[in-house]
């Protein structure tokens, strides 16, 4: 290295020492002053929105971010208030959270656990975020949830469907509003039995990672309980883009139903392949061949185009719902952005609102107080009907939508139609259900970082 660096360093060092001399009396250790991690002391409070902005789920991430921006606007009293007006709890006044103006920082999870943790850590360590929310994959959700538990901030999960998030990997500081694999299976099974009969032979294609496993397990358990038989379950690599070699053996297996435990691009490709192979025109065992997609999203339906017509799946929320909450949300989202929100946007918006409301009710930003306020919290008016945040696993329990691809869509957003709203009782399970990690899974103690 050259000499100039040395003098530059010298300069820096001298100025640092000079600065130290001047400011010496003000030295204090900040950690002793705060009661919990990132206690907001000024007249603002910072929330961290950690969403995938690049990578395979960037579309979902962009929609999540739009929802968060809308939520912040509403919390600070801007816009038309959206679901704040229909929310059953009236703690929120539109003057920020506890009178503090809501500010936010954003980060890119890249749908990688490492990157997501790095960006969440920078929000906590650098920007002083008191709550982290967002994400579009279960791996990321589990990783960031564990980080928030360690650091002593609240994590409000975004789009994460795997059982593990509030199952075996549940944490006291983490909360999930989105539904999960078990609920998908439980909601779908009766509808499938009605539509296709109880003596079907199912063939599963499963994305080879955690979410795929839990979804396959849940759908198998629920359909087998109705009398279906599972002929085979084949795992497909996550990076697979051409599924023809996996589709071909399906017909030879004697199965008459294909279950695609795929999400995002995987589902778009596998469904397209299956339809191109003419599976849906085939007759097996004297029945029409059918395809089922356990987890649907509008963005996926858009990708698969024509092929989704008439195919059953489940979803957390859909913009065509006609309750007051959904209508208010679709209206204010549509006014701001010009198109209806996706289910990812909905769950993120609701999570931000629920957090803000819990802080108001608890009267404190302290994570442990917030946990207490959210545990066992019953609310309504957020688009899913009466909902319970269960204390044992921090999972929301609410009605689940069974949808199918619309035969005659009227617009590019109108791709799914709601077949049935499965009541919450039907999708409720015991907190120590074997699919949820059994009796070993515990939340642990809430951590406020003090």
């Amino acid at each position, binding site marked *: 290295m050259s000499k100039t660096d040395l003098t530059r360093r010298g300069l820096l060092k001298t100025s640092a020492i000079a600065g130290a001399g001047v*400011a010496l009396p*003000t*030295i204090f*250790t900040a*950690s002793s002053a705060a009661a919990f991690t990132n206690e907001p002391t000024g007249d603002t409070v910072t929330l961290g929105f950690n969403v995938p902005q690049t990578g395979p789920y960037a579309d979902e991430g962009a929609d999540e971010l739009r929802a968060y921006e809308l939520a912040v606007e509403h919390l600070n009293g801007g816009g038309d208030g959206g679901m704040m007006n229909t929310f059953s709890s009236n703690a929120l006044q539109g003057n920020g959270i506890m009178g503090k103006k809501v500010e936010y920082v954003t980060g890119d999870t890249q749908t990688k656990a*490492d990157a997501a943790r790095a960006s969440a850590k920078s929000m906590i360590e650098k920007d002083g975020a008191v709550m982290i929310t967002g994400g579009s994959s279960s791996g990321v959700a589990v990783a960031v949830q564990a980080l928030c538990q360690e650091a002593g901030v609240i994590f409000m999960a975004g789009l994460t469907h795997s059982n593990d998030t509030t199952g075996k990997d549940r944490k006291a500081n983490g909360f999930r509003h989105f539904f999960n694999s078990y609920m998908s299976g439980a909601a779908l099974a009766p509808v499938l039995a009605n539509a296709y009969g109880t003596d079907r032979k199912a063939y599963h294609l499963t994305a080879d990672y*955690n979410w795929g496993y839990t979804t396959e397990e849940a759908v198998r358990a629920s359909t087998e309980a109705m009398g279906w038989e599972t002929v085979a379950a084949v795992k497909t690599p996550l990076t697979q883009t051409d599924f023809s070699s996996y589709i071909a053996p399906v017909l030879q297996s004697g199965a008459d139903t294909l279950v695609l435990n795929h999400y995002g691009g995987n589902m778009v490709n596998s469904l397209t392949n299956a339809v191109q192979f003419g599976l849906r025109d085939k007759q097996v065992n004297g029945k029409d061949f059918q395809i089922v997609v356990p987890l649907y999203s509008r963005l996926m339906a858009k990708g698969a185009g024509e092929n989704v017509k008439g195919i059953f799946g489940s979803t957390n929320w859909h913009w065509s719902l006609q309750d007051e909450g959904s209508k208010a949300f679709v209206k204010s989202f549509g006014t701001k952005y010009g198109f209806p929100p996706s289910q990812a946007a909905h769950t993120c918006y609701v999570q931000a609102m629920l957090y803000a409301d819990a802080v108001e009710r608890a009267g404190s930003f302290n994570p442990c107080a917030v946990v207490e306020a959210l545990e066992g919290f019953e609310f309504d008016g957020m688009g899913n009907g009466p909902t319970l945040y269960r204390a044992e696993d921090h999972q929301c329990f609410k009605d689940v939508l069974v949808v199918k691809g619309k035969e005659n869509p009227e617009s590019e957003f109108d791709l799914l139609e709601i077949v049935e709203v499965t009541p919450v009782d039907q999708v409720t399970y015991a907190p120590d259900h074997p699919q949820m990690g059994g009796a070993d899974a515990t939340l642990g103690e809430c951590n406020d970082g003090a």
Partner: protein
Amino acid sequence: MLGLDKKDFRLLLIVIAITLLAPFILNPFPEGSGMAQFNAGYPDLMQRFVIYGIFAIGFNILFGLTGYLSFGHAAFLGVGSYAAIWMMKLVTLNVIPAIILGVIIAGLFALAVGYISLRRSGIYFSILTLAFAQMSYALAYSVLTPITGGETGLQIKATDSPLLSNLEPGQIGRANLFGMDMRAGFDLSFGDWLFTINAGYYIAAVFMILAFYLSIRIFRSPFGTMLRAVKSNQTRMYYTGLNARPYTLAAFVISGMYAGLAGGLLVAMDTQAGPERMFWTASGEVVLMTILGGAGTLIGPVLGSGAIKYMENILSKINKDILHEWFAFMPDGLEDFIIAIVYPFIGKGWHLTLGLIFMAVVIFLPGGLVEGGQRIGRLLRGKKANPNDDKATQSTPAE
């Protein structure tokens, strides 16, 4: 001193000073000011700077000296991470054994991969290493889920109770160094300036200084000269009766162990390991770091890794709102226009900026940021570029 000549010793001292003063150097802007956005002196990022610095230093021993471009180095980082986290889950929460195990396992894995891959050179070698890395990634992501935790990865849980620790039931273990928590530390505030002193960072920094020292010694040793001979003309080496394989294999294993050290440290600082660490983009990243900083130079890889991690963590967090704040003084139309131009390069567009900088460096500064520094240094000293001087310090660009 320490077996180094004067120039190298000075470089080592500079590196030591910069790493030790990093919490101050990286936080040049007062808290709450508009420029605080660009502060990088928070523990997580500082730890990443030094850890990826180690990773790049190790990669440079292989790539910079022998010219063998491994495109699968992230596999060793990942293997080191998994080894370290299992050590912590099962045996002890002290980070030292975990790091040591990470280095050893990564070294063994590098021995196996290197033994096979080094039978070929050039592009075939790169492809072989890439294949191994992608294979490891696929194994970790799905096939070996019981060992690696699959997509979700591994963390220390409340149910883990390592043999040599006495945790209360339900307590989640934390990484420590003989009882000192990695996240221990304190904040220093001088007026508006806030500096965070963090135990984990200094532990990682000590490892990086040691790794850097070792790399200087390797560069200056007869062994290092042999490795350079491999790079300049391997065929001639064979004709003179020298077998290059043991040298390249040794370099490969050393560099794999550096990666394992980085992996172990990543786990020590943040007790989590996931398969994305082994994905090919992670392998590509270390190649970028090394070339951006200056392949074959001592300090280059550290600079390169710092630059990339800075962009990834700081640039990517600038969103539209922050831009609006910055340019609020402008008239509305102009403000929107400027933001429309700047926006694609920040936030989620940080990859684009990285790409442009990388292209600029490769085209105009083939010797990387180090060459840039040298040119600026010469300019300041008012000397004309001396061709001899140039040859002595600058490496040949990557082949």
